[in-house]
């Protein structure tokens, strides 16, 4: 067990190192990193300060060392636009992103799980085909398009919901639905296949042989077990959601991390762009590591396999 965890932690650290190296190298590939890291129209003194801080006149490995040294201190640089440290900006936006992510996840589960179950117990028939169509639409309609169509319908024609901003419960509905929509398709597919697997298992057969009513077999025996992989995926997707929300947050002017990234791109605020990518990637690596460890703690088969 200790060996397994050590190995997983090792891989994660390696992933983080490679991630930082990738980002570091891409910035250098463009030729002049100083022009990315300083404000457009910065004074010669500012450029010199940045060159000193990142050692841009020194060998590449020294530069990488300095880059990592600053990263590990939590120094991601200052935003040109907001004139505050990137880390602080990120922390101030994170709660909004989490709120949006959690509600969007709620939507996707409420949509995905029942349709998945329905498709599985009616496999090959109408509800199954309807479910497939729904999953296909989910994968084919980009979330920002769903967002724009929602605005058109609910804000412009019906005038029910505010088209952008944040603050009230009503502001949250459309962006959360647009973001949850895409993931609903994935959750529906997984619920369906997981449910089909469980329905074919011995204990479901036994439950049926005992003469339990079908509703009880599905609701009590099959449903709970089929849910495990779906909830695991949902946990992983929650982190993904916070990171892919950039287009939805832009459409609805939702003040989350995605919007921060968009602002970073539009205002040519490179430290913000770099910071969001580094923190987002690290978050995913760490969460994946935690999930692996929890899995190994819960399921002995996984740690014995290693």
């Amino acid at each position, binding site marked *: 067990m200790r060996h397994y965890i050590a190995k997983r932690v090792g891989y994660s650290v390696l*992933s983080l190192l490679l991630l930082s190296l990738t980002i570091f190298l*891409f910035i250098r590939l463009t030729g002049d990193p100083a022009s990315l890291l300083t404000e457009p129209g910065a004074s010669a003194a500012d450029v010199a300060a940045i060159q000193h801080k990142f050692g841009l006149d020194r060998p590449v490995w020294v530069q990488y060392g300095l880059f990592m040294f600053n990263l590990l201190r939590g120094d991601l640089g200052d935003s040109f636009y907001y004139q505050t440290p990137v880390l602080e900006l990120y922390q101030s936006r994170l709660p909004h992103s989490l709120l949006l992510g959690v509600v969007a996840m709620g939507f996707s589960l409420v949509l995905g799980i029942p349709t998945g179950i329905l498709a599985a117990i009616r496999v090959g028939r109408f509800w199954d085909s309807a479910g497939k169509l729904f999953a296909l639409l989910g994968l084919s309609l980009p979330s920002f398009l769903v967002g724009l169509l929602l605005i058109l319908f609910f804000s412009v024609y019906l005038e029910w919901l505010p088209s952008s901003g944040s603050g009230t419960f009503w502001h949250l509905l459309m962006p959360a639905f647009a973001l949850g929509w895409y993931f609903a398709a994935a959750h529906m597919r997984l619920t369906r296949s997981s449910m089909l697997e469980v329905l074919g298992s011995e204990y479901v057969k036994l439950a049926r042989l005992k003469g339990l009513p079908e509703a009880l077999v599905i609701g009590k025996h099959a449903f709970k077990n089929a849910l495990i992989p779906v909830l695991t995926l949902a946990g992983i997707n929650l982190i993904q959601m916070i990171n892919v929300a950039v287009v939805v947050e832009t459409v609805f002017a939702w003040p989350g991390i995605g919007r921060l990234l968009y602002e970073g791109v539009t205002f040519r605020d490179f430290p913000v762009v770099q910071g969001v990518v580094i923190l987002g990637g690290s978050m995913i690596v760490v969460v994946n590591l935690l999930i692996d460890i929890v899995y190994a703690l819960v399921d002995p088969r996984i740690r014995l396999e290693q």
Partner: protein
Amino acid sequence: MSVTTIPAALPMRTRTARMTDVPIIPSAILAIAVVVAIFADFLAPHDPQVGLLTARFKPPFWMTGGSTNHLFGTDQLGRDVLSRLIFGTRVSLVVGFTAVIFAGAVGTTLGIVSGYLGGWVDQVIMRVTDAWLALPALTFAIFLAAVVGPSEMNIVIILGLVYWTRYARIVRGEVLSLKEREFVRLAIVAGCSKWTIMWRHIMPNVINSSIVLATLMLGIVIITEASLSFLGVGVPPPKPAWGVMLSDGKQGLMVGYWWLTVMPGTCIMLLVLAANLLGDWLRVKLDPQLRQL
């Protein structure tokens, strides 16, 4: 003579039988899109980049105020929406296909090399793949676009760099089992070099999976390109990309100029839907093992 005609006829029959269940609607959509993209110059009624400022925000022809001169209306600069959609098809398809092929070439090559050579090469390639997979694709693409600046060529390279990892993972897995097979061992005994084995014996056997994945990726890549263009880091604005059109149309949305959003939106949806349906069909056709997925 009859002896030679019978076996010659058999594969023909199976081939025609197989072709009958090609999903017609998605294939037709894709075929139309390809034709429109190729002949955009002849099909478009107006110049997609030049508009008449006196003819701004004209609605589609069936609405009051619309005219058959601009079938799908005009945008905020008075440019013809239909013409922009037609030229946008070209942008989406060119970027989509080249990016998918680029990603596929890189990913398949690295997957084969990683799986066949094993050892430290495999370790290095797979660790890099893992690290890149950890980055959310869209965020990573935005970062790269911010570093290299927007252009059609850069978008292709960015999408290739972001999506090669998926090919590498799948191809490597297949190579691991292929390299234990008899024909590969015989090739080794026959004295083939490693590169010959990878190129001549392994590659033809994994190309099917790569093609299936490429078809499924086409939809994802088209959506990502549209998202990047929508955010202003994709295809640069005067060019009529669907994502750019959606971004422009956002301003008019609140005043009810719905066609600027719905028209490019429908195009994206149809093209992605067609690619996904074809990809699903191909997956089942070429790889019966995946039918359960």
